[in-house]
């Protein structure tokens, strides 16, 4: 309708040139690369879970051996002052 619209339509027509031919193996290459990315993500996720699991196990073993909750409660009075 307006002036800029006509200009844009003109440029739009320029952009719609002949399409380049799509290489027949492009889809295959992209899929192969995508598969590798998926596998890599999966490996990273698996390693992350394993690390978390190892950390939990290590903490449980340490807690079972040391039993930090059985330590005597801290005294709430200061020891008597002697030899002053």
């Amino acid at each position: 309708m307006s002036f800029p619209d006509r200009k844009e339509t003109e440029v739009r027509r320029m952009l719609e040139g002949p399409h380049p031919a799509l290489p027949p193996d492009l889809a295959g290459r992209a899929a192969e690369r995508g598969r590798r990315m998926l596998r890599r993500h999966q490996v990273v996720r698996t390693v992350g879970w394993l690390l978390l699991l190892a950390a939990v196990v290590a903490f449980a073993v340490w807690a079972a051996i040391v039993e930090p909750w059985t330590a005597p409660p801290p005294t709430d009075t200061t020891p008597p002052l002697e030899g002053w």
Partner: protein
Amino acid sequence: MVRDRRAARDGRRAREFEAFVAGAGGRLLHAAALLTGEPTGDTEAAERLLTAALARTYARWDRLRGEDPYDHTRRTLAALFAHRGHRYRHPRGGTLARLTPQERLVLVLRLYEGVAEEQTAAALGLPAERVRAICTRAVTAMRSAAPRRGATGTPPSAGTPPSAGTSPSAGTPSSTGRPAATGAAGTGAAAGTGSGAEAGAGVAP
């Protein structure tokens, strides 16, 4: 059991992806070639760019959750191009050879792909006014480069740079290239209208 299900999912994903590339690949490659500034016959960098974008779409295929794969690929393509823009500072020809990488990106997104101004701005991380200004500047540059149609009847090869010489040949086969282009655009645009809002919302924050 789990292995069977995974194999079935891999097969389905590969089939769907192949069909998607067969349908939309030509249009996407044309957009990539416009971005990299390569002539129609030699689109090596554009193919590399598109392969990288399509690989990301493939890796995300199962988690697209109703988003149009065309939208996703286009956004990835734009992001990859913006990220590697400095590599394409010296275009080797093509329709948009005289523009800067940013102008090419805005022009392709706005005019070739018909992405809304706000979504383009969100995708590029620019204010909408800036996108409009870049677009106007690019349109002016393109029109000053193009030979006036039917102005004085001078042949387009007379005194015009070689980049401008490609545009008349780009203009004439549009009658033959149009049905294929609109067909590919139909799949993208039809689904794009539905998911456009949420795609934009995904980019906005």
